[in-house]
């Protein structure tokens, strides 16, 4: 899979209208009354009554008659030969039915290896060697979860430890080969680049100022409240496999299962029930899923597998781990002119990321961010190491977190070096509102934006200039206070079928609406909420378009037997894709409804106009038919020659991605004694286009900001030189609690997407993407006068303390 992707040469022209200069406002667009509760209403979430009463239904709540339980033996070594697996003592325990090894899976049809979503391969269970600590070695099937746990303790595995390579730079020397199953004996996986190298080199030659920084975006873990799990239920009589699975993409997973297992796709039903957080971690297929499904196939009984917290934290879904060298060029006026990036991506033992196929480094090439520059050239190389598979898109819109951290840190370094205020420097370098639609130097077509308005609003809300005065006064007294800005551009809503697919399946998404005779409705989608609130927001889109009260619309997702095919929910894509499909399907229904209304009112269709929830005869509003009247007629009195019923399906292929943005400003105080950083204030101004439900958006932003605070100050997965995970429990993998979290102050501007049917953009990942550099910039801002230019996240107290003492600051 050693390839160079040059997607930008292949990039076909963007359809007309997919980007535009769109005016910005602060005002929510509300066109429906509260009874209908269309877009803009702060409707309480329809899913919450069951969640707050503990009535959700998660995979671990599924209990089937005769269900067996699976537990997994995991490797204590990061790299070792397997000499022998002896499960004889385990099998003596009453209730232990079977052990499943790599050899068993091989005999079952070469199921000991599986493809990853990135066309790499990954072991399901090993035969020869393990390549990371906590790797699955074999599985026990027992009648009881507790017996299974006792049994794995009794499995004796003889290992012969092998040399371990943990550092990706060391890995590229190929002294230790992680994947000797491959033909090419190298740890180098692929090289990828974007942008124009020659033009960029020229810009750097002409530059008045060039800066360079090295930074590491550390390996982190999604740590959703619910771990991963499955109940596989194979019916030997019907030859039907029913699977309950913690899946963000049930349809795609069904297709992958069909291709890997050879079971016919119509005999596989995947149900993704309530999901307790996904964040990208429930997109990949983990070995445990495959073993669990095989266990059910073999036993003909339902088998449950649910990871415990340690397994989840040590073996699943690692993200980031980019080692970046970035250079920025500026002209004599302090205008950014170019960017050069070289990155080494640590993918662990397999490239098991879940990016669109043509984008091995995700959408990292969005790295020029909110700034208008002439040229950019970005290179990424990926390496195998003896760590669990990494590169999963953790609430990052496919590597946009890494890109934004880099450009926002670099922008601050350049502003400081030039002696300019970081806010004024950004204002000077932003892409201007009148430049939209904007073509970026790496080939992106920004749909709409107004970066000046968002930053100005953030500055006004936080009182930026007063804070700078306060900072100067404090600095004179020897106190350390910093102000950090992040003005990010996101890119979400993958994506247009010409460029975006996963294993060949195009990244459209879908909606299917059926309106019942009494005017109530069911709507099903190809996406899958994991906390995003789809049951509410999709209903609001339909309410907006059809005038049906949102409360009257049942939203369903996650069952592949009933929902239309879709690629699932991740990378902030649901509103840009399935949300658009909802509006488009609703418009098909409205077109039919108009014909029915014309028939009922005995007028020409052209004489009708749509008002909130009804068609009125123009100039005679008392002559009307509500959507409910029309729905009833669709089943009882539909026009001759017309099909009965009122339903529609839409598979939406977006013409472009959406480009949400925002400006965040953060104030920190630093303890000179301990090096602790305290976030005193944090103002987040987000622009995600038209807003479906402001409360849901604010909730997304609050959660995302906390998930941005986490890697900035707390979270990092740390390995020792033997590849042992030192942060494999929540005592050392530091999820911030309410106590560490500042009071988030949120605000908004609204610059609609010109191409999205309802003008919306995705928002779920904006705060995770935007927050870390605001915090890092604030800390460096507090220390710049001491000669500090950069600190890698997480900015731990010890790192700050070390710098302070080195610079002669003490307490």
């Amino acid at each position: 899979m050693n390839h160079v992707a040059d997607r930008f040469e292949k990039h076909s022209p963007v359809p007309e209208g997919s980007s535009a200069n769109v005016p910005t406002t602060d005002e929510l667009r509300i066109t429906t009354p509260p009874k209908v509760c269309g877009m803009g209403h702060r409707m309480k979430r329809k899913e919450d009554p069951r969640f707050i009463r503990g009535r959700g239904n998660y995979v671990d709540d599924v209990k089937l008659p005769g269900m067996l339980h699976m537990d997994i033996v995991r490797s204590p070594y990061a790299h070792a030969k397997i000499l022998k697996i002896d499960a004889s003592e385990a099998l003596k325990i009453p209730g232990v039915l079977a052990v499943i090894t790599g050899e068993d899976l091989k005999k079952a049809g070469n199921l000991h290896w599986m493809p990853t979503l990135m066309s790499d391969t990954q072991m399901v269970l090993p035969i020869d060697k393990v390549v990371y600590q906590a790797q699955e070695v074999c599985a026990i099937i027992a009648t009881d979860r507790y017996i299974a746990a006792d049994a794995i303790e009794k499995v004796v595995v003889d290992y012969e430890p092998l040399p371990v390579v943990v550092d990706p730079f060391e890995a590229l020397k190929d002294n230790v080969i992680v994947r000797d199953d491959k033909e090419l004996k190298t740890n180098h996986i692929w090289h990828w680049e974007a942008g124009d190298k020659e033009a960029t080199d020229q810009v750097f030659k002409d530059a008045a100022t060039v800066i360079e920084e090295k930074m590491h975006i550390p390996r982190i873990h999604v740590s959703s409240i619910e771990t991963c799990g499955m109940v596989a239920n194979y019916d030997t009589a019907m030859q039907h496999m029913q699977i309950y699975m913690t899946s963000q993409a049930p349809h795609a997973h069904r297709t992958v299962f069909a291709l890997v297992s050879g079971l016919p796709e119509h005999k596989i039903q995947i149900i993704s029930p309530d999901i307790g957080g996904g964040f990208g971690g429930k997109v990949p297929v983990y070995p445990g899923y495959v073993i669990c499904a095989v266990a059910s196939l073999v036993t003909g009984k339902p088998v449950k597998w649910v990871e415990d917290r340690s397994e989840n934290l040590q073996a699943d879904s690692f993200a980031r781990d980019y080692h970046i060298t970035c250079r920025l060029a500026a002209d004599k006026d302090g205008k950014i002119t170019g960017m050069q990036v070289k990155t080494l991506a640590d993918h662990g033992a397999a490239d098991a990321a879940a990016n669109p196929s043509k984008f091995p480094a995700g959408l990292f090439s969005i790295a020029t961010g909110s700034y208008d520059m002439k040229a950019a050239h970005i290179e990424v190389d990926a390496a195998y190491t003896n760590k669990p598979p990494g590169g999963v898109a953790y609430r990052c819109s496919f590597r946009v977190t890494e890109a934004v951290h880099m450009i926002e840190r670099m922008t601050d370094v350049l502003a400081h070096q030039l002696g300019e205020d970081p806010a004024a420097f950004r204002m000077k370098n932003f892409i201007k509102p009148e430049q939209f639609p904007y073509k970026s130097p790496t080939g992106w077509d920004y749909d709409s934006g107004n970066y000046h308005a968002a930053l100005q609003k953030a500055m006004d809300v936080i009182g930026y200039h007063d804070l700078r005065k306060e900072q100067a006064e404090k600095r004179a007294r020897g106190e350390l206070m910093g102000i950090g800005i992040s003005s990010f551009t996101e890119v979400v809503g993958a994506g247009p079928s010409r460029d975006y697919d996963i294993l060949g399946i195009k990244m459209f998404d879908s909606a299917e609406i059926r309106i019942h005779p009494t005017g109530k409705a069911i709507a099903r989608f190809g996406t899958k909420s994991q906390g995003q609130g789809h049951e509410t927001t999709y209903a609001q889109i339909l309410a907006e378009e059809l005038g049906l009260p949102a409360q009257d619309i049942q939203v369903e997702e996650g069952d592949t037997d009933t929902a239309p095919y879709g690629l699932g929910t991740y990378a902030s894509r649901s509103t840009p894709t399935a949300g658009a499909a909802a509006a488009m399907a609703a418009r098909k229904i409205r077109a039919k409804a108009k014909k029915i209304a014309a028939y009922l009112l005995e007028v020409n269709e052209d004489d009708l106009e749509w008002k909130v929830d009804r068609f009125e005869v123009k100039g005679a509003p008392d002559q009307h038919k509500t959507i409910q009247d029309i729905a009833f007629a669709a089943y009882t009195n539909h026009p001759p020659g017309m099909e009965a019923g009122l339903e529609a399906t839409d598979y939406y292929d977006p013409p472009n991605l959406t480009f949400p943005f925002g400006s965040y400003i953060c104030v920190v105080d630093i303890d000179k004694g301990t090096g602790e950083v305290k976030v005193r204030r944090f103002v987040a101004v987000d622009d995600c286009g038209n807003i479906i439900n402001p409360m849901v958006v604010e909730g997304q932003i609050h959660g995302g900001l906390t998930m941005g605070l986490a890697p900035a100050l707390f979270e990092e997965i740390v390995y020792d030189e033997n590849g042992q995970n030192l942060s494999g429990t929540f005592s050392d993998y530091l999820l911030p609690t309410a106590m560490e979290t500042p009071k988030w102050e949120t605000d908004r501007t609204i610059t609609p997407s010109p191409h999205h049917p309802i003008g919306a953009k995705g928002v779920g990942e904006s705060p995770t993407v935007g927050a870390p550099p605001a915090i890092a910039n604030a800390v460096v801002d507090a220390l710049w006068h001491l000669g500090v230019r950069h600190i890698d996240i997480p900015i731990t107290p010890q790192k700050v303390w070390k710098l302070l003492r080195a610079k002669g600051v003490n307490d």
Partner: protein
Amino acid sequence: MIPATFDYHAPSTLDEALQLLARHGDAAKLLAGGHSLIPAMRFRLAQPEILIDLNKLDGLRYVREEGNVLAIGAMTPEAWLEESAVVQQRYPLLADAVSVIADPLVRNRGTVGGNLAHADPANDQPAVMLAYGATIVAQGPGGRRNIAIDDFFVNLFESSLQPGEIMLDIRVPAPGASSGGAYVKMERKVGDYATSAVAVQLTMNGPTISAARVALTNVNPVPMRSPGAEAALVGKAATEEAFEAAGKAAAAECDPSSDLRGSADYKRDVTRVLAKRAIRRAVARAQGRS
């Protein structure tokens, strides 16, 4: 994260508990709040055959003044101290500490006795009780006995409680006039063990510090006092120079290990800084300034 098999007993009297402990010996572990034991069992680091749950022993849950002593039942949840007016008014060092032990959920179940009996230098109560010079009362087959806190901590996870003994209460001498105490803790996040923490209890005689006990959390294999820090304070005027000298002595005497909380050097320096802050606050309290 599923514990190995064990038998469970929940005696309703102290006698019953003592008898169970005598019968099962080393195979048994006492369960108080369980915040150290249960995680260890879930990781199978501890695999006791018998659990003796003391939570039904309501007679071991109290906070009360008995003459010149604050008596705390061994099974008293930390949260009770947080809510106790006596503690808040007269035992500021203890009040400081119980508001930063882990988080409110842990404090609702975690007990003062368990926090001490586990003899974990990362726990907060050992340093607090060392600074107060408290006395532990225990009962076993040989009867009831008092153990001075200075004799209580023997080794990592090892106290001087003998096999078959159960801790009954903790007796904290009431601070005299012109006394003040403080507990200053640094933690990476709420619920984490201290990176370092310092407990100080001292008495002033005019401008001079006449008595001082300084104890440290999680910077030594065994919960420890810092004699050097105490010597740097006693008989000295309460000045920043004295505080700095005490902080430096504490930093020199402790023996932290390097881990993800920080290097040994870092922890020593943080101990110095926190010691100064704790002493400063204790002096202010002794002088009635806060």
